């Protein structure tokens, strides 16, 4: 009985922290899925751009580039992310309609350029970027809940909730759903597909910035930190079926929890191999995502 109790005491914090990091993976995955859903392009530059913007926040607030307070630095970084997204899409927009494969390869090129730019501007050093959250921690049922946890949960819920409201109820969202469902019919009805794609790229970039800001305090910031989180985001998107927004949100949380359990109970050294296994298993068992049956109800 006591063995069960102590196992549960182990399990509880693991599930909780898995869910917190899972929210971050979900934010990354949602950005990938937004772009993939409407244009069938896998954006491999997503992580590099998000990492670059995290560095911009550091640069704008630390005095490396500018000396601003944290809030204005974030706003500036979001503006920069939107500009980069718009520029990236402008570069590849002519490819998207010809071949999604070519456009996907082109995003790798964009990722290389952004990665190189990060190294050129900020170097290969490790810096720390903190999140101004209230120092707070409480203990419930053997669970340590910190201010950071609650911030992540609140921001992620608000962002994802806002995204779903945007897609369900606004004109832009309806256009996005129409273009994803049937691009040809949407174009016949007078929708400008380029505009819809641009909308998806911009939203994805903003999601990437939010994700990067929240991820960085858990580790440190280097030229590869954020990009290395992309595998988790990709795994989350695959588990969700890659074309389903709710699926990728659920997939993100699932990946967060599974990763935590795996690193605690099995081995922390094989996490990428574990994710590879999850991706292959997910492709085999539910190629259309874990929420495939519930499809059509939303988005």
């Amino acid at each position, binding site marked *: 009985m006591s063995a069960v109790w102590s196992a549960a005491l182990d399990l509880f914090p693991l599930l909780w922290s898995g869910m917190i990091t899972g929210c971050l993976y979900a934010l990354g995955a949602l950005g990938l899925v937004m772009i*993939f859903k409407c244009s*069938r392009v896998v954006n491999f530059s997503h992580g590099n751009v998000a990492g670059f913007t995290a560095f911009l926040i550091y640069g704008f607030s630390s005095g490396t580039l500018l000396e601003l307070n944290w809030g204005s630095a974030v706003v500036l970084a979001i503006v920069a992310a939107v500009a980069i997204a718009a520029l990236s899409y402008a570069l590849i927009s002519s*490819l998207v309609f010809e071949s999604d*494969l070519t456009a996907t*390869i082109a995003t790798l090129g*964009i990722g290389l350029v952004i990665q190189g730019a990060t190294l050129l501007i900020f170097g290969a050093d490790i810096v720390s970027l903190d999140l101004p959250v209230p120092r707070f921690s409480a203990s419930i049922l053997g669970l340590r809940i910190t201010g950071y946890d609650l911030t992540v949960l609140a921001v992620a819920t608000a962002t994802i909730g806002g995204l779903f409201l945007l897609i369900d109820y606004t004109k832009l969202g309806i256009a996005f759903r129409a273009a994803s469902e049937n691009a040809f019919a949407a174009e016949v009805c007078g929708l400008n597909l380029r505009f819809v794609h641009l909308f998806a790229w911009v939203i994805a970039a903003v999601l990437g910035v939010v994700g990067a800001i929240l991820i960085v305090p858990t580790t440190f910031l280097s030229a590869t930190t954020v990009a290395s989180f992309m595998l988790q985001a990709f795994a989350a998107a695959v588990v969700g079926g*890659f074309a389903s927004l709710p699926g990728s949100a659920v997939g993100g949380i699932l990946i967060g929890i599974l990763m935590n359990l795996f690193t605690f109970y099995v081995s922390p050294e094989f996490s990428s191999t574990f994710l590879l296994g999850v*991706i292959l298993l997910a492709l085999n068992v539910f190629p259309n995502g874990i929420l495939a049956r519930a499809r059509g109800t939303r988005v």
Partner: protein
Amino acid sequence: MSEISQNAVSGGIPAWQGRAVARALAVAITAALVAMPFAAGGSWTYLLGVCFANSIGVLSVSVLVRYGGEVSIGHVFFVAAGAYAVAILEHRLGVSILVSAPVAVILGVALGIAFAWPSRSISGIYLAVSTMALALALPELINNASSWTGGYEGLYVSLDLIPGAPKGLQRYYLPLVALLAVAYALGCLRQSRQGIALLLARSHPVAAEAFGITRGWARLSVMGISCGIAALSGAMLAYASSTVSPSGLTLWASIFLLVGSVVSLYGLTFLHAIVGGAFVTLIPQFLASAGAWIPVLYGVALLGVILAGNLGPKLRDAVGRRRSRP
């Protein structure tokens, strides 16, 4: 139709003439490369040996794009499989590359098919994602199997193909011969029934299915061929550089192979492969001091070639239309 557009591409030269020029060029460059070690120093011989091995790697990525319509950013995994097969067979069994290279190819084909199996029936973009995971998992696997792979330090490959012959020359000519053989085999594949069947499965899946060629079968075969070539590239890389270590086997190396493939226009001939391999091998060598400019340069080259390939024909059409206007 294709004849006409090809004429347009080469600016009015008949297609057969263009092909003859390309063939003459290939023969000339091959002859130059064969004579190279007698004119240039040892460092050049070494560098070009590695370059030939990388050229084979570029070909493996191009095969996947051309025949499968798919992109892999994890081919370094299969390259590593070939390279470690050579090194481990030498260390454990004491056999030279003559035995281990065919084993490496068989291993690569088997791994490629095993890996493509889960995604055999779904859209191609998933292969890019799962190969990315493969490339990221590779260093973990190598470092944790250090009793076999030598961990971070890697393994030496010291046995020669022909004992007694000059080492440098062997490590130059064997990769060159392997590259020529792969290019020749790919030329044969293009003419063969099987090659045409694979192309049909890519361009007209329904028609191919009517002939009994399912998409799943085509996808597995292409992946098998491509990964076999990648493993051969790894075997040659291990032989040409005399070492195998995980430091060069990263996701970036995979992406660079893809960049090489794009820069060589996904071509499957000897000349295309040399261009792609040289791009991958020589640029980091000559721009070693440039550091972070290298990814930028690669990214710009990738985007430039893709955009030129996309915008070029459109511009030509626009110019042609203006000219033909009365």
